[in-house]
């Protein structure tokens, strides 16, 4: 244990601890657990939840009408047969990448600071993947046949077509969802036990009792538990990378100029982490404020996330530059035109807006003052989220609207239904998140205790 302490790469800068001093096991579980067990919802929460709930109902209306009339109610057409639906799908999947990344990769890298954000980052992942998962179904011409994309034995003896990137998507996204869910739940078991034993009302005891599955913290269990958790992290890490790689294949495998690019997998993954961390910030900043968790989600966390954003943002910028370079260097007239059309065509403003949001504005993160300014970080995270949405819009729409034969060129204008569905899923995401922070510990209690213990020892050592 000590041995481990010493070789922990310490990110702790003076004045920026991963956990505010003076915390005990008790105080930790009190502060985190009380949100779920004792505190009342509060007017503010009720209000936010109501808004989100309304948005979800808007989503329902939009979806019902969609199923009744068909995808023709959206702005899509020939040549632009994919519109908002796919843009949103890629966007949500991207957001869904931060959670598992934080939990898995940072765990493997033994980054202590992950502890206080991984739980709700994982929850965010789950909800984002749920949102993403809706779109491939909704955008089908015949959504009631979506199950045909799964390889199940049927009387007709027909099977899906495994050469299609869309089928790879089916496997990647469903695997990602299942693994993330397990990862999240396994992390939850010991905390459920804690809440089971602290809860006063019997029904809460029962609910958490069931969730805890009779967990009693046996040393043997902990041993297997930690091994399983570690391996899961090891598996989830390549999975995270693979998921957005596969999503990028949807485009890279096609022959369409603007899609058919080898740079896509790495730059999609970077983009995903980029947007993911932006979304974690968007959520973490209000939560730590409303629920007074500043002790657990300290400036250090925000700073580190800002740094990750800066880094991945630069990778994304590199991607944009290479895209432009390829189109010039390939000397391919279609590629060349595609780039010209992106920059100067009818959708040019979208391109420049995304450059602004994803590359120019985030450069301010080089400054320590910006990185340590909560408001600035919050606004920046929103900007990046918007930028990443625009990126997907540019890739999907501007590439499609002017391809090989000028005779088939067209324009895409979203309808109100497109917009309702998009904001509907945003509402769904928010609603799920509000429920989560109320019903489950938003921060991993047992891992915080571990942290308390470590910090205590760090102090002891200093003391002697």
């Amino acid at each position: 244990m000590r041995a481990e302490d010493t070789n922990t790469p310490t990110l702790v800068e003076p004045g920026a601890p991963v956990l505010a001093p003076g915390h005990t096991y008790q105080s930790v579980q009190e502060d985190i657990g009380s949100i779920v067990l004792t505190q009342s919802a509060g007017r503010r929460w009720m209000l936010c939840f109501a808004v989100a709930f309304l948005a979800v109902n808007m989503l329902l209306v939009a979806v019902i009408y969609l199923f009744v009339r068909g995808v023709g109610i959206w702005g899509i057409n020939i040549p632009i047969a994919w519109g908002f639906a796919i843009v949103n799908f890629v966007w949500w999947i991207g957001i869904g990448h931060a959670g598992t990344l934080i939990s898995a990769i940072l765990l493997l890298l033994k980054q202590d600071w992950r502890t206080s954000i991984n739980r709700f980052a994982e929850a965010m992942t789950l909800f984002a993947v749920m949102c993403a998962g809706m779109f491939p179904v909704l955008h089908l011409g015949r959504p009631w046949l979506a199950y045909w994309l799964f390889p199940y034995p049927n009387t007709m003896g027909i099977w899906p077509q495994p050469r299609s990137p869309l089928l790879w998507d089916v496997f990647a996204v469903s695997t990602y969802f299942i693994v993330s869910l397990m990862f999240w739940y396994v992390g939850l078991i010991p905390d459920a036990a804690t809440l089971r034993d602290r809860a006063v009302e019997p029904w809460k005891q029962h609910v958490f009792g069931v969730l805890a599955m009779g967990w009693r913290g046996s040393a043997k269990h902990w041993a297997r538990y930690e091994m399983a958790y570690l391996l899961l992290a090891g598996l989830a890490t390549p999975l995270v990378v693979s998921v957005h790689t596969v999503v990028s294949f949807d485009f890279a495998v096609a022959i369409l100029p603007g899609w058919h690019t080898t740079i896509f997998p790495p730059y999609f993954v970077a983009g995903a982490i980029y947007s993911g961390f932006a979304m974690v910030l968007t959520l973490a900043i209000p939560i730590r404020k409303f629920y007074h968790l500043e002790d657990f989600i300290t400036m250090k966390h925000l700073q580190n996330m800002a740094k990750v954003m800066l880094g991945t943002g630069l990778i994304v910028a590199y991607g944009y530059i290479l895209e432009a370079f390829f189109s010039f260097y390939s000397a391919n007239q279609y590629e060349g035109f595609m780039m010209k059309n992106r920059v100067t065509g009818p959708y040019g403003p979208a391109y420049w807006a995304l450059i602004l949001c994803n590359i120019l504005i985030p450069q301010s993160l080089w400054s320590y003052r910006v990185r340590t300014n909560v408001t600035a970080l919050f606004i920046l995270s929103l900007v990046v989220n918007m930028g990443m949405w625009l990126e997907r819009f540019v890739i999907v729409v501007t590439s499609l609207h002017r391809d090989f034969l000028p005779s088939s060129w067209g324009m895409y204008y979203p309808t109100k239904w497109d917009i309702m569905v998009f904001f509907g899923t945003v509402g769904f995401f928010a609603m799920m998140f509000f429920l989560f922070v109320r019903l489950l510990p938003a921060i991993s209690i047992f891992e915080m205790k571990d942290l308390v213990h470590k910090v205590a020892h760090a102090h002891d050592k200093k003391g002697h």
Partner: protein
Amino acid sequence: MKPKHSDTPHLHVLQNRLESVGGREYWRSLEELADTEEFRAFVEDEFPGRSPEWLNPPNRREVLRLMAASFGLAGLAACTKMPIQKIIPYVRQPEEVIPGKAMFYATAMPVGGYATGLLVESHLGRPTKVEGNPDHPASLGATDAIAQASVLGLYDPDRAQAISLYARLSAYVNFLAVMNRVREQQHQKKGAGLRILTETVTSPTLAWQIGNILTEFPEAKWDQYEAVHYSGSEIYHFDKADVVVSLDADFLGGMPGSLRYARDFASKRKLSEGQTSMNRLYVAEPSPSITGSTADHRLRMRPTEIETLARSLAGRLGAGQAPAGTASAQVEAIAKDLENHRGSSVVIAGLQQPPAVHALARAMNQALGNVGVTVTGIQPVEAKPVDQIQSLWTLVKEMNAGQVDVLMILGGNPVFTAPADLNFSTAMGKVNLRIHNSLYFDETSELCHWQVPEAHYLESWSDARAFDGTVTILQPLIEPLYGGKTPHEVLVSLTDQPDQTSHEIVRSYWQTKHTGADFEIFWEKALHDGIVPNTASPVVAAGPLPAVPAAGRAPDAGTLELNLRPDPYLFDGRFANNGWLQELPKPESKLTWDNVVYISAATAVRLGVENEDMVDLEYRGGKLRAPIWVLPGQADDCLTMYFGNGRRRGGNVAKDAGFNAYLLRASDQPWGAPGVQLRKTGNRYTIANTQHHHSMEGRGIVKSATLAEYEKDRDFVKHEDPETPKSQSLYPEYPYNGYKWGMTIDQNVCTGCSACVVACQAENNIAVVGKEQVVKHREMQWLRIDRYHKGDAANPEVFNQPMLCQHCEKAPCELVCPVAATVHSGEGLNQMVYNRCVGTRYCSNNCPYKVRRFNFLLYSDWYTESLYGMRNPDVTVRSRGVMEKCTYCVQRINEAKIDSEKEDRRLHDGEIVTACQAACPTRAIVFGDINDTTSQVAKLKQQPLNYGVLGDLNTQPRTTYLARVTNPNPDWVKT
């Protein structure tokens, strides 16, 4: 039929009628229906609120109820019957109908009086598709878009469905009773108050009937008015012409015999069949036509300028006194070219040109010795060639003078099409009894007492003559769906045998022509072949040249010139309710669903108007508000507008489509003249356009060269951009040992007439989506004709490229389908499995040709009962949410294969003809087995001109194109 009772006609009429309408039941249902509320509603305004898109289920429910009523009323209860009389299939075997096996019958479609011979495909008594009759001189197996779309016209639910008096349901017996009274009255005054108004009549039988009536009622008069009146007294032989000068004559698309002319013209232009020489075409026209797009030299001229050109050209050729001043270099060049081809050239003047130009054209042909060789004068094909506007004018005069008691309008829609200044509709008010026999309850029917539904030509016994006079006897493919009556039957209501059927009438006429015992043989042969032998109009020696009127004063620069034309597809407006034609992109502009005011870019800038601006036009008191469309190739200071749209009472499809250009028509200048006023209104109007970009962006999509360049370098196509060798593909070649289907399209002879597009639509049950959806780029036609411009922006060179599924061997679409809904067949067809498709639309995204079409909504009309009969039973009707595209007419392939397998033999070349190929007038489309080296398609693919579009993508398309070669005059100076 029964012996004729001369005594008390009135009585036996009723009696016969009762028998022929088959029993009381009919009457009972009729009475009941007549009294129901919805029926009244139905008569008041047909199909309330049904959207033209046929895309509006709730309303359609309403409509369905009403229509069920109307069907019952028409006494056929929505089921179709073969005609009772004997009709003769084109192919004798099989004698009896085999379910699932289509039969073909020869008949003809008259448009503007002139017939095109057709073979109509019939499934169990339902005509579903028309093809050209190879034996017919005006078709030679080809058809035009209008003929292809006529099937939809037959099943159109908006057709007049029951005889009506004052727009209220009546019965034919009542009508006959009335006519009987008319007959008695008019007998007393020798028919002085009787007028018959028809369209151009070429039908010998109808002419004979009218003749008989006029002998019975000497004072009665027969007037004709056809909005687009061709006087067929000259025919051309383009297969003998090396130089053609068209003075605003759209002979490849817009006149009787166009199909034949196009074929002949193309035969002189195809380089694919080892031919090395080409004809040369000069076209002078104000507004781009398909003939203009085919021209080697297109002169962009206002109509008045064309007259000047004609005069100076004639002067230069010594066929008339030349105007003052020296002929321009262009005239010089044309004249030289013509002189070098004496006897092998044609000068042809267009319908819209004044008599002077026609006279000059005749003079020039005379001077060039073309008469009798490439141009022959024939005895007029019309039964009674008259100046029809004059004829209508006198009629209106008499009507206003109250001299007309009874006006029988047989066909046509004069209230809509008559020149505005005649005020035909007000004159109508002065007539005591007005009778209208028409397919639709239209603008004219509204102003008539009686509306007698007309039988569609596919429901009719009749006869009609082709552009060269050849007669075809029309045989019905089906009993009248809505109990329609032919003009023949309406006419006999004036005689003492009002119960005669058109079958009897037509037969009895031909019995007078063909006396003798072998009449049955003659009759059956005529029906079978679709032509009556040796009925072509005899050639007449060229009479004296008509005097050329003196040149009028040229309009001063800047005056806008009005140029009215028949719509290329809606003709004079009679096809305005045909969704296929409304949604068919106009060849010159790719606009659908509306007619617009074409204007040149320069003039648009001068007047400060742009696309989709609403403008007010005023010409001789006629006023019209219509949208502007800037059209490359349009003459400056010239506004071109098509007739035919803007129907007030034309059915639910025609409703709200376009603007009524007849409001600008003046009786003395039916095709327009200088002096139209244009005022900008500031309003905007959305136009549904299927193609927005007409530049090739420097991409080698349509490859082209001049004849000279081609002779220098036969392989210029390969040199332009070499195709990726198949060896460079990562993937092994799939073996195609059996058949290997492929197609070639010769861009050298494709005129862009779009017959193939409608043929495909009819063959493959392709849905009409309506204007709103076309605006959203969701049109469904599997085959589209891309149009590209090159060169001079004001008068560009035009390239037509039919674009359909290329059936790539390395199909990008198939690879990305997650459910294997589109896969390759063993014969290399790129197949679409509708019932497997879940609608991800990924295939369309990955299709470099964007030829896939998606049912974004429920586009197929699943509710309108009358349309069920129209559909091709061999092709699935697609539902919402599935992708569709060209299949190379796989149903035709399989039918032929089954036949060949029964006979245990390989298919031979030409046995399978795709719908588009069959329709093509110039035979530009060739389909067949590439493995069979002797097949035409295999040979064409060996041609140096052969190339695959976007070949560098190495998708290895099975559809390839032959590069376009033009034949410009070497000593032509660009001005």
